């Protein structure tokens, strides 16, 4: 075990020898990375705040973002003349509370991103591990099919499937995940090939461990950290794509508020109600910014090369 600095910044021999369950180990590795990088830490905190505001605050306030009030349309945000504290970010063309809609709208984006990441990550992890561990024809088939997915511009693939199946929350998640599994599979494959010939895998083979056991106990735990960082970066993309699709009317159908729908509706009123299109966009931007900060920070903390240059 000469090379004991794995990509995660944790020692391979620690991983191979300790007997704690690997999800716990991956979790603690992730936490230590978070503490190493201030930007990741800030990103994580902002993201946690956003998730809390979207999923908990509207429920506490009894908001669903769908209640209309035609007597109270186009109220500007509170800091502008005519604004009111009862609707801090103003109301839209149907008198709906913009703040409430932004908060509730975040649920769709965050749910889609998290679920799509979970599915794509699982599929990519399984196929990428098979591909990298076994090589040969398994590898060829999986990677050739993957090439085909990569050949499509992502947005076009999702749009043509949604046009076929119709827009819904479930379809959106499945389509994003299926269009993107190959990104994970390729990264996983690369990492698996990198650890495949490490001494601890060889020794596990030498003592007669079954492939399944080796993959589960020795391969996956050691490649998980870089994949989680990739997942963070991809999640930011899913949020942009989800809002883009719902902007085009191909996301979660109304009346459920989503950021994309708010942008599409607000676009019609840019002449007299700037807040309708500006504020949901800022919500998207800050969410993605926090995810990017988290992802970048984790990546920098993990990448030994970058660290060396930095010191």
């Amino acid at each position: 075990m000469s090379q004991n600095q794995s990509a995660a910044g944790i020692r391979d021999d620690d991983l191979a020898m300790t007997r704690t369950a690997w999800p716990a180990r991956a979790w603690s590795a992730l936490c230590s990375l978070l503490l190493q990088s201030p930007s990741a830490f800030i990103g994580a905190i902002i993201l946690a705040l956003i998730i809390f505001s979207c999923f908990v605050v509207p429920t506490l306030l009894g908001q669903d973002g769908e209640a209309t009030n035609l007597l109270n349309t186009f109220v500007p945000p509170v800091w502008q003349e005519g604004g009111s504290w009862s609707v801090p970010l103003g109301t839209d063309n149907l008198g709906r509370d913009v703040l409430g809609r932004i908060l509730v709208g975040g649920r769709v984006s965050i749910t889609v991103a998290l679920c799509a990441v979970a599915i794509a990550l699982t599929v990519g992890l399984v196929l990428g591990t098979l591909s990298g561990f076994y090589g040969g024809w398994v590898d060829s088939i999986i990677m050739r099919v993957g090439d085909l997915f990569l050949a499509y511009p992502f947005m076009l693939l999702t749009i043509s499937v949604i046009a076929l199946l119709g827009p819904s929350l479930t379809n959106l998640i499945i389509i994003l995940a299926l269009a993107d599994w190959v990104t994970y599979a390729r990264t996983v494959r690369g990492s698996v090939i990198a650890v495949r010939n490490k001494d601890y895998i060889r020794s596990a083979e030498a003592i007669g461990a079954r492939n399944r056991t080796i993959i589960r106990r020795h391969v996956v735990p050691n490649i998980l950290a870089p994949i989680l960082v990739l997942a963070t970066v991809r999640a930011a993309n899913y949020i942009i794509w989800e809002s883009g699709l719902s902007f085009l009317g191909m996301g979660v159908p109304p009346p459920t508020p989503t950021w994309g729908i708010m942008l599409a509706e607000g676009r019609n009123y840019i002449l007299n109600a700037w807040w309708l299109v500006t504020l949901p966009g800022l919500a998207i931007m800050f969410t993605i910014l926090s995810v990017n900060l988290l992802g970048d920070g984790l990546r920098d903390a993990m990448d030994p090369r970058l660290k060396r240059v930095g010191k």
Partner: protein
Amino acid sequence: MLSHILKRLGHTVLVIIGISIISFVFLQLSGDPVGLMLPQDATSQQIEELRHKLGLDDPVIFQYLRFAGNALQGDLGRSLFSNEPVAGLILERLPATVELAFFSMAFALVIALPIGIVSALKRGTIIDTASMILALFGLSMPHFWLGIMMIMLFSVQLGWLPTSGRGSFLHIIMPAAAMGISMVALFARLTRSTMLEVLGQDYVRTARAKGLPGYLVIGKHALKNAMIPVITMIGMEFGLLLGGAVIIETVFAWPGVGRLIVQAIMDRDYPVVQGAVMLLAMVFVMVNLLVDLAYGWLDPNVSLQGESK
């Protein structure tokens, strides 16, 4: 080198066949055209006759081969909505999309490369930090939202630029900039990191040690090598441009293929959707083929690796 090119060509042909199979399957799944072509009260005999006439009762494999054969001859079927040939509809709008993609990419590179290079050279200074923070913001903005913000500022408030349509150079500034911004961020970051890597290499130190002036070290030795990953990225990001065009063309009423796709989806005109998606996917594959070949030509290591495998 030749075997690298041949291998790459073979791979491209396989991918294109794959794309055509997927398109064919999607078209099959999108429904039976016969139901749309005949009146509601058509007898089952009439339906059978039309199916036979259209060849829909042939085995699927023959239907695919006919589809692929027609596609090769430039026949992608007809629009269910306007009954015009799909290929014609697409080709009519393709130049607008290509123009937009080209200008977005040019915009991105012209801004990103200097930022990336300067950030790398002035590493750790306020210039570097500021550019990288800006890049992070650029990456985090949805481009269609940025497009709307630009319309609000430059068209509605200032009245400098037209809100939509295609024509003069003024028309392309906003869509190209909106679509280019996230790529500015990507390319600036990539250029910075590859430059940093290259600047630490022995050959750059040697060039410096032998007394070469700074601009020559950067321009001749560092930049040329740092550009290799950037060129690969250009090919990959081209897909983002073609996909992003779907939304940005809608925002700016840009008469390209993206808008055609969106309109066709609203009209439930699936042959047009599928034809356009298939064609853009193939354009993307060809661009990546060209990038790969250029890459092999720029970096001799690639072709050597290809042969030793």
